[in-house]
């Protein structure tokens, strides 16, 4: 089973993005689970959620404490202690940022880093800075956990065709860097 934690801010579409992943894997005959965790429900406040992907029924219904993968939609969350808490050694971080790797000050446990500047992609396709669908493209490429064609269909069905184009461009543009992780 893969355990993934998502971090973002209210209005960035964290919940919808994760639900789209679950819909896609379920549609693909597999199993997925997502539990959003809201603080106060308002635009801009930190939002996180817990995603599990498995090839059989997922009985456990808890938060994720030791994620193998982090999907982070907003780089202003990197300084929060919760963001990297429990990340497995050699884990994968998929991050929306315009910063370079040197500017990021990431923990040494990160094994694979996938960087995407989602803002210009979102602005060019959907005319609003909502990074979730671009980040789905980055997630799909970096992790290989979701059937990419099916995910794109689900993105188009849920968010509309311009979002499929955003995801597609992100899939091509995401930079995947192998950092090795501290073993």
């Amino acid at each position: 089973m893969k355990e993934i934690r998502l971090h973002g801010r209210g209005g960035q579409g964290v919940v919808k993005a994760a639900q789209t992943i679950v819909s896609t894997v379920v549609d693909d005959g597999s199993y997925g689970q997502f539990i959003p965790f809201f603080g106060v429900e308002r635009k801009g406040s930190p939002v996180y959620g817990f995603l599990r992907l498995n090839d059989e029924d997922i009985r456990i219904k808890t938060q994720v404490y030791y994620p193998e993968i982090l999907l982070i939609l907003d780089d202003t969350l990197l300084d929060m202690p919760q963001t990297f808490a429990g990340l497995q050694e050699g884990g994968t971080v998929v991050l929306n940022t315009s910063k370079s790797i040197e500017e990021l000050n990431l923990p040494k446990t990160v094994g694979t880093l996938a960087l995407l500047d989602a803002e210009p992609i979102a602005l060019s396709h959907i005319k609003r800075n909502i990074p979730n669908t671009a980040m789905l493209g980055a997630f799909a490429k970096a992790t290989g956990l979701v059937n990419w064609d099916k995910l794109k269909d689900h993105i188009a069905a849920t968010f509309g065709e311009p979002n499929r184009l955003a995801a597609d461009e992100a899939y091509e543009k995401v930079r995947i860097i192998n950092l090795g992780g501290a073993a």
Partner: protein
Amino acid sequence: MSKIQALTGNYSASYGAALCKPDVIAAYPITPQSSVVEKLAQFSADGEISASMVEVESEHSAMSVVQGAVMAGGRAFTATSAQGLALMYEPYFRMSTLRLPMVMALATREMTSPETVWSGQQDAVSVRDAGWMQVFVENNQEILDMIIQGYKIAEDPNILLPLNVCYDGFYLSHLSERVEIPEQAEVDAFLPPYKSRHAILDPKEPMAVDPLTPGNILIEYRKSHLEAMQEALAKIEEVNKEFADQFGRNYGGAIDTYCMDDAEIAILTIGSMTGTGREAVDEARKKGIKVGLIKVRFLRPFPVERIREALKGVKAWASIDRSVVFGWNSGPVFMETRAAVGNADSTCNFSAIGGLGGADISLDDITGCIETLDKLKTEPGKKDTLWFSKPVE
């Protein structure tokens, strides 16, 4: 062919309700339940269901509207949580004591204060003696399935009692997972239309309902209500079997058991913590701990005989509750189970409490509970309550 789709717990409740073809739906939005009725309103606007959607200004009105609808011979549905349930208490109680069958989804939420909107079962357990049947479920499939089973149990002419399908707020209401949505024809074959026989609002044949009633008659109403609750215990098992035969999903009836055949110690769970409990049991068994799990599905009626039977031969047991009983320093499943087993002091037993106000009940919490139980199993008697406390950040 049934349809497989990823659904939140709330949407699963909406699909379950829609498949039961209610005549009237009335509800007022409250976190974490709101999207149940939003989805039903969408079904209605899209012409997918024929129910009358009644907009109301409060939960008190919502329950009053569905009460009138069921009294007039219809099938009705509503949903609520916590403070909404508190506000509807007056017609809520009357719904059961008028013996009007319906199903209400309850996305369980902690009761204030302190102010909270998150998970906890205190709302449901605080009305467990308001005469409704209450089933607590483990996953989103069970929400949908129990709404369908719920109408069948509630509307049985020997029972005629309303039923709550209780599911953990956020941990199920907002959790997305795979749900199999049965075909309408399959549900129609399982659940016949409701035919009211005992109280119909009909201007052509007027009938007085609920006149001022003296105690010597009222006591007969209560007696009959309690008898119906006991009859429901058998009906729950019967409907479970019928559902399993038709849909292939067997929930075990009033309780479900896991790895209990050779169990020396047992945990009792209620709601969505159960799946996590099953994982904890598997892990403990790998370490040689002979532990089993009893999932308490129905809190009302309380399955006394089945609990007693399941705990026979067990040296030690603990219940895990997501709510409290004020005045007993324990959770409600603990109190009910102690009452069910009679002299419980021949076993080691304690109450564990966690998951209040949205807190998680983690795998580590349940594993810790099992390990404590295993350590104490040779010392009979009631032990201190175990609180799943989390450090305050």
